[in-house]
């Protein structure tokens, strides 16, 4: 009895934090998504599902609904970019994590610190730096022109590649760190045992390292995919707002468009997508461990 009570007491801070910072805001968002927009921002009664209908249909003058693919396209594009970001951060992040793992303990610490350094600087500023690098008179184009590689500046900024670059750059540490964490827990003797059993380098990766680092890869994928799906800073700044993504769209609803219910409804959809991704990931890693 005492044990149960102390367990509950010990759980309280965690429950409190999750409640205050997650459950309550989520609940507010959910309620807002079922309310009516106030012209000057905010929400009013009555309750309705207009916000959700709005995602797929446009209301004609006669009151009938016609299908509008605009928002679906934005969602698909967002999911595509988030997936691409996840894959690219994985392709880049795994070798980085492996490289760090192969170093001496002192160098590992140094390299891990280097990986986390970007966290010390505001994302807005870091993203702005990419504009300075990529714009027509930016460092990259200047250097290439100076080296006579190109005559005219390359259109590096304000396109989907620039968005992708920004997303990969921002979220790479979220992939590197969990993968590194699983690699670090790997018993090096298992690798030696594999070498002792005639493994070649590629097969070592394919048959031993990769399956054993899957939990880290899964965690990294979720940590990258979720925020990448909702990102709006990189699409706005590096994409020039030309290619609307769901994150920007949501942000717009709360600022320029002043349609809070619609913004909330979109946010709920994104959250659901992330939750589904999490469940799928959880199932995969579970089966990976048990089967």
């Amino acid at each position: 009895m005492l044990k149960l009570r102390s367990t509950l007491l010990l759980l309280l801070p965690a429950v409190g934090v999750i409640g205050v910072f997650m459950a309550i805001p989520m609940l507010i968002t959910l309620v807002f998504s079922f309310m009516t927009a106030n012209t000057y921002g905010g929400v009013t009664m009555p309750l309705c599902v207009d916000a959700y209908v709005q995602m797929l249909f446009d209301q004609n003058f006669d009151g009938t609904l016609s299908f509008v693919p605009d928002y679906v396209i934005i969602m698909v594009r967002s999911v595509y970019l988030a997936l691409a970001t996840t894959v690219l951060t994985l392709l880049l992040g795994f070798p980085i994590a492996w490289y760090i793992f192969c170093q001496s303990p002192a160098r590992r610490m140094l390299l891990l610190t280097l990986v986390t350094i970007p966290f010390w600087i505001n994302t807005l500023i870091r993203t702005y730096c990419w504009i300075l690098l990529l714009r027509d008179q930016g460092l990259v184009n200047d250097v290439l022109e100076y080296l006579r590689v190109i005559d005219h500046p390359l259109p590096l900024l304000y396109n989907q590649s620039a968005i992708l670059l920004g997303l990969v750059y921002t979220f790479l540490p979220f992939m590197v760190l969990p993968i590194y964490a699983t690699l670090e827990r790997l018993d090096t003797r298992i690798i030696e045992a594999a070498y002792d059993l005639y493994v070649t380098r590629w097969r070592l990766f394919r048959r031993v390292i990769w399956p054993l680092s899957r939990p880290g890869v899964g965690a990294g994928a979720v940590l990258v995919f979720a925020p990448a799906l909702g990102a709006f800073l990189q699409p706005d700044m590096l994409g020039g707002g030309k290619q609307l993504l769901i994150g920007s769209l949501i942000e717009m609803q709360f600022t320029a468009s002043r349609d809070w219910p619609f913004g909330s409804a979109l946010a709920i959809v994104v959250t659901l997508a992330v939750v589904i991704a999490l469940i799928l990931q959880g199932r995969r890693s579970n089966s990976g461990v048990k089967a």
Partner: protein
Amino acid sequence: MMALLEAQALEGRTIRPPRAMIEISAVEKIYAGGEVKALTGINLMIREHEFFTLLGPSGCGKTTLLRMIAGFEYPTAGGITIGGCDVVDLPPRQRSVNMVFQNYALFPHLTVARNIAFGLEMLNWKRAEIAARVAEVLALVRLQTFADRKPAQLSGGQQQRVALARALAPRPQVLLLDEPLSALDMKLRKEMQFELKQLQRQTGVTFVLVTHDQEEALAMSDRIAVMSAGRIQQVGAPQDIYDRPANRFVADFIGEANLIPGPLLGLGEGVVVSVRPERVGLAEAGAPDRLKAELRAVTFLGADTLVECQAGEVPLRARIRGAVHAMPGAVVGLIWPGEAQWLLRE
């Protein structure tokens, strides 16, 4: 013609000496930046079909030497041949040697059968051959019913046997065992000692075992190399090493030993006499003895009694069968048969 026949007859009579499986010559290891040599002047010949043990306290270099045979470490100087081939520059996967690791190092994501098949798959054996071989070694270690379990679902002793099966599956010329029993409890360890020895006899594979446990080494090995501070102190059969230790370190490390300075027994300086406690007895009152000592403690241990004495500065121990009735503080005479003492030069 006659001479030739004689020579043939002679050759026929001589017993062929066992062939060398591993030859280690003048091997040294100095780690980068280290001034201390991890291994110095190691010369060792390990025979075919032999159960050979590298025995020594931790940090004596025995594991380094084993890892050199496996190919995980490279000697700074010297040569190693396995089955007649120079292997110094070969990576582990090009050596016909497999290793049982200290904590087994089983692949946690693979079943027992897949663990055992791993080496065979890497060697590109045919599927049917792999299945047959896996079944064979599973039977050898009596784990047939555990083929589909994951390592985490096995007990320590079972994991140990999977590690053995996995290392034996590719039919290596030499099996290396790095403290294979250290993670097991006492009872299981004794069982596994017996099983290991039997497995070695059955398969005929050369076993090279590393251990710090002298009892384990004595119980299992055909021959033992006692190591200390990066050097080999003595190589020999268990009884040789026990009865005729080459130096003070070996005498002290293998079993218990009373090390008595020569002058105490009327011998010269620079000589130490080693006597095993179980060979020491108490002289009857008035009977001649070899050494007088003051009794310090008498501990009854059941089968025998541990008698601790002191002769001058030198502590002495005697294990005497049955009970001993003597009071601490008394002066007793110690006796032992002449063949029980072994002279060591300091």
